[in-house]
Every structure is written in structure tokens, then in C-alpha cells.
């Protein structure tokens, strides 16, 4: 719970006040924290691409949105990222559980893991890769950066960083 709490605290410190998730077991603690947080909006959504649309609307309405998802969700969302969030220059934080990184027990997750950073790089999305607890200290500044550059940004949280956070 310590890691998840630190991530949410830093996102909030960065100004993020609107959260969606397509659940992942590595995100479960963060979801629980957000469900009990009266200061911010939180909802699950069925699909990441749809979540990108809701985040765009939330930005238009003066919220600073974050969508939490597995890295697989980036694959579901490429057109919405490019032709909505980037086209209209909308700041949104992607908080990504980086499935398929070392420690991952499910071999099938390896495929998207191999190309996740390549996709984000191709999309020119700034990335913060968190592999240890001290990396989490960069999250609030990195989130604020999204607003400054009016762009979606991606925070990748490694499997081994999240797996023992019970």
C-alpha cells in the first residue's frame, strides 16, 4: 500500500484531480485509495480508448485527468491519443502498470511489454519510467510538465515495483 499511496499522493500534488481506470491487479491498491478519496473524481471505465475521450472532456471542463491502465491499454488507444489528445493539445497523465517486465509471471504479457516504449516514443509522449521507490518522487513534477507542454505524458510502473505493495 505504501507505493500506491505514494503514487497517488504525488499525482495529487501535481494537480491531478480526475481519475479513471481500466483495472489491473497492480493498480488495485490505487483504485481502493481513490474510491475512498472524497477530494477527487474516480471511476472505472470499460475500455481505455473510451477513457481517453472522457479525459478529453474532463480537460475541457477544467479538470486535470489521469487514466490508469495496463500497458496493453496504450495499444487500444493510439488513434484517440493522436487525433484527440495530441491534436487539441490536452494534458492527460497515463499511469501505466508495466506488465510483462521482469517479475511478471504471465508470459503472454511479454509481447506488449516489448513494444510499449517504442509505441510511446513513436507517439512522442514524454515518459517517466519508475523501477524503484525513489523514482516516484519525480511524479508530481512530471505531471505538472504535462500541463506546461499541453501533452499527454506516460508514467510506467514496473511489475517488480508494484507486485509486493500489499
Amino acid at each position, binding site marked *: 500500500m505504501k507505493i500506491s499511496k505514494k503514487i497517488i499522493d504525488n499525482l495529487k500534488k501535481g494537480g491531478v484531480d480526475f481519475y479513471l481506470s481500466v483495472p489491473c491487479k497492480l493498480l488495485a491498491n490505487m483504485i481502493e485509495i481513490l474510491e475512498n478519496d472524497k477530494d477527487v473524481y474516480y471511476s472505472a471505465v470499460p475500455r481505455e480508448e473510451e477513457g481517453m475521450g472522457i479525459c478529453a472532456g474532463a480537460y475541457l471542463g477544467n479538470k486535470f485527468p489521469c487514466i490508469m491502465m495496463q500497458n496493453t491499454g496504450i495499444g487500444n488507444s493510439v488513434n484517440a491519443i493522436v487525433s*484527440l489528445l495530441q491534436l487539441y493539445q490536452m494534458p492527460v497523465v497515463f499511469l501505466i502498470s508495466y506488465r510483462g517486465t521482469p517479475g511478471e509471471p504471465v508470459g503472454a504479457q511479454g509481447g506488449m511489454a516489448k513494444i510499449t516504449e517504442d509505441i510511446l516514443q513513436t507517439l512522442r509522449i514524454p515518459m517517466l519510467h519508475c523501477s524503484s521507490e525513489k523514482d516516484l518522487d519525480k511524479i508530481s513534477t512530471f505531471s505538472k510538465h504535462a500541463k506546461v507542454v499541453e501533452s499527454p505524458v506516460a508514467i510506467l510502473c514496473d511489475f517488480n515495483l508494484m507486485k509486493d505493495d500489499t
Partner: protein
Amino acid sequence: MNRFDLLNKIQNILKDNLIICNIGLPSQELYKISDQPNFFYMLGSMGLSSSIGLGLSLSQSKQVISIDGDGSVLMNMNTLATIGNRAPSNYTLLIIDNGSYGSTGDQRTFTDENTSLKDVAIGAGCKKVIECSGEETLNELSKAIEDKNNSYVIISKINSGNVKIDPIPLNPITIRDRFRKFIGIVKYL
């Protein structure tokens, strides 16, 4: 009645609310009828009009109308479940259902065959679901806006057909900033 006729008929009610308008011909036709700063024209991301409007209605208190199409809702059908569980009362989804993919040459959609978006919306948990003719749409939309306690999904059944029209000349940042200025967020314009 086709989409252009319908948009013409409901234009006055649109001027008073925040409008998210679907990509392609719906936005181009609306722009031609009457361009307003409170109209957010989608230039990409087919399928997400309902979702953008939902996020907007959750984030501020003004009335929001998402203008969507049958083809687009079929592309993002999970949106009806999210709306059925999360839409606040300042949200209305207007699905202009002409049974065709208008912007791409009027190919038939599944709503012209076996699919009822009304039944899907009800099954997805939407409480106020109205299916009506194009002629009845203005009245149904007015009632939905006046009801401060419920969100609505209105499915307006019209004929297919488009008018010949140019792309919207506005750039996306102009659309974004004047829309946010209308809400009162952007001060620098």
C-alpha cells in the same frame, strides 16, 4: 428529414448549451448552419463524442449535449454502459440514427438491420432513453434539457443523406480555446 434538416431545426437549443459534435459531416453541417464558440467540433477520434461529452458533464455544471451518430456509437458501444452508470443530470446524448455511415458514403450500419440502440442503451443501464422521429427531436431535446434530475439518451431516427460541404477551416487549438473561454476557463483570448 436528414441530418442537415435536423441540425437546422434544433440549432437554437444547441446555441444555449455545450455541444460536442461528432467528426465528419455532422460537424461540417453544424458549422455551416451556425458556428458558435460553445460548439466543440471533433476533427478526429471517431466514436468518442459521447465520451468527451460525458467527461465534460462530470467536470462542470453547464448542460452538455453530445451529438453522435449510429455508426460512431456502434464503434464505442461500451460508452452506453458508462453513461448508464455514471452520467450526471447535465448530460444528454443525442444519437442521430440514420442507419448509415454518412461521412464515408452512406454505407448501411447495423441499426438499419437488426440492432436497436434504444434496447442496447436500456440494457446498458440508461434510465431515460427516448427513440423518436426527426420531427419530434426538438421537443424531446427541450424536455431533456429542462429535466434537472436525469440524464438522457435520445435516438433520433432520420433518413440518410448529406449535403455537399467543405471541411471545417478552424484549427484545433482555436476550437479548444474558444470553447474553454465560453465555459470561463480561458481568460487570455
